């Protein structure tokens, strides 16, 4: 009996070994060592960029009228809150930066400056409102700290970054492992309640902001673009997810950097 079973077990073991190796050849399941986010960055996000306002001009380049919340999927509570907008009150309360917070800041016209603060954290500075956003990568010490519930809410909230991965190791036999695809994903929470637009269109403390950053080009004329897809989820004031995408052109000739303070109107 043993003499008959042993060879079968040997064959099965060989087949299993061969199968596992084939997977390993494709890299399907092999464990990857933790990588340095800066070293494996699939795109160069660093540099000075200027927003090009070809969309939502009348809500971005000038202060919209009170009650003008067209395009935003506000629910009844959101509209009621927006109708109480009082910029003088915000200014007096030291809350002039309410429309420069994380869910809104990439829509505010101006230049931005992106740098690597260190190997695991991207830094975004804005002219408008002189704001600073930090994007620590998941897995880093700063990234883990950003998710702690004890963090106090702030205008720019707590962000955690990751490289968007392409592929999921799918297919009948697994396929190649996911790899950084070119997009930067940033999820931000712990945001101090503020405005999606300057005219008091509100978001609440429970808001979750998800952003995707893509670098495009160079185009035929040499232009390089940064596109930021922004998704705001706020069950208190929105009927559904709020989508916008903002585009920035890379500045080649050196920046003309003019930081400006927040203003409530």
């Amino acid at each position: 009996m043993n003499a008959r079973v042993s060879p079968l077990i040997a064959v099965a073991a060989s087949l299993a070994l061969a199968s596992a190796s084939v997977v390993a050849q494709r890299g399907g399941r092999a464990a990857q060592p933790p990588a340095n986010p800066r070293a494996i960055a699939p795109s160069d996000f660093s540099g000075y960029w200027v927003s090009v306002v070809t969309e939502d001009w009348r809500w971005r380049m000038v202060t919209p009228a009170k009650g003008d919340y067209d395009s935003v999927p506000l629910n009844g509570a959101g509209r009621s809150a927006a109708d109480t907008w009082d910029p003088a009150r915000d200014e007096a309360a030291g809350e002039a930066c309410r429309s420069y917070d994380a869910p809104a800041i990439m829509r505010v016209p101006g230049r931005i400056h992106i740098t690597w603060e260190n190997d695991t954290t991207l830094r975004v500075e804005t002219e408008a409102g002189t704001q600073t956003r930090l994007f620590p990568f998941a897995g880093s010490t700063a990234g883990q700290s950003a998710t702690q519930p004890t963090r106090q809410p702030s205008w720019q909230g707590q962000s955690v970054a990751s490289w968007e991965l392409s592929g999921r190791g799918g297919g009948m036999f697994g396929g190649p492992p996911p790899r950084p695809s070119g997009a930067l994903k940033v999820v931000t929470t712990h945001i101090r309640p503020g405005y999606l637009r300057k005219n008091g269109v509100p978001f609440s403390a429970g808001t979750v902001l998800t952003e995707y950053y893509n670098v495009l080009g160079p185009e035929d004329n040499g232009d390089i673009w940064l596109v930021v897809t922004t998704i705001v989820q706020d069950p208190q004031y929105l009927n559904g997810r709020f989508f916008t995408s903002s585009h920035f052109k890379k500045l080649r000739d050196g920046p003309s950097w003019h930081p400006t303070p927040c203003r409530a109107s």
Partner: protein
Amino acid sequence: MSLLRTGLLALIAAAVTTPVAVMSQTGQPAPSKQASQSLVEYDDQVQRSATNNVDFTGEWAPRFHEDEPERVPGPELGDYLGIPVSDAARLRASAWEASIQTLPEWQCRPHSADYIWRGPSPIRIWKEVDPVSRQVTAWHAEWLRSVDRAIYMDGRPHPSANAPHTWAGFSTGEWDGDVLTIKTTHLKEGYVRRNGLPRSDVATMTEHWMLHNDVLTVATIVNDPVYLTEPFIRTTDYELDLHQWVPPYPCQVVEEVDRPRGVVPHTLPGKNTAVEDFAKRCGLPVEATRGGAETMYPDFREKIGHIISKCIAAQR
């Protein structure tokens, strides 16, 4: 008998494991073609390289969270805010009359490939797959009130400049990482906004399709040496909607307005004072509403000063 059987099975095992031995000797991964020779495997790398692990297939619902008043009910006359139009474009737009849409030649005119992304329409995207190689040879995009648009992925060249121009134009795509980049030429004359701002038939368009889970963001960059002074970029978002259906749009031409044969609604240059109504109603400087590349950039705000708009619920 037992020995013979054991030996036979060992030979089979050796045959199966031979590729592994070869690989371990070289220390290099075996080429995917070698792996695909097995009877129990197929080489899905072929399909993966054709789609680059990204599949746009599906029904996509537009989210009008940007410029909704312009995109759904329609733009106001004289609103060229933030568009890098040339003087020629302004002149022609000022002669435009909305009632031109009632002409038989215009009633069923589809939106062109560059405008339709901003139009009030859902989209269906599907891929054309070669039945033998299983490679994706083209992507197709279909909207309401538009035509089937093919984006060829098989490396074919663009046709001669003298080839016919169409509403969809001629598009070829290639991958730039996970972004599908598309070049479109051979567009028929169209518009960049539905208030008469023209786009010429020598314009070209570059698109970048970006997929982020169930969100599709498309950047369109239009270059038009006739009616634009700088590239005109817009980015538009769609959400995957498995319950959506893009219905047919069997447009039928009818006699909408009884007018003499040959009459084309228009306003003579310089005579259309209505193009300034939008600026007055919204409390915006007329020079801003006339557009131009300068109005796209943040520094333009220093020129016009601090303004609180009067626009509100104009088109609800």
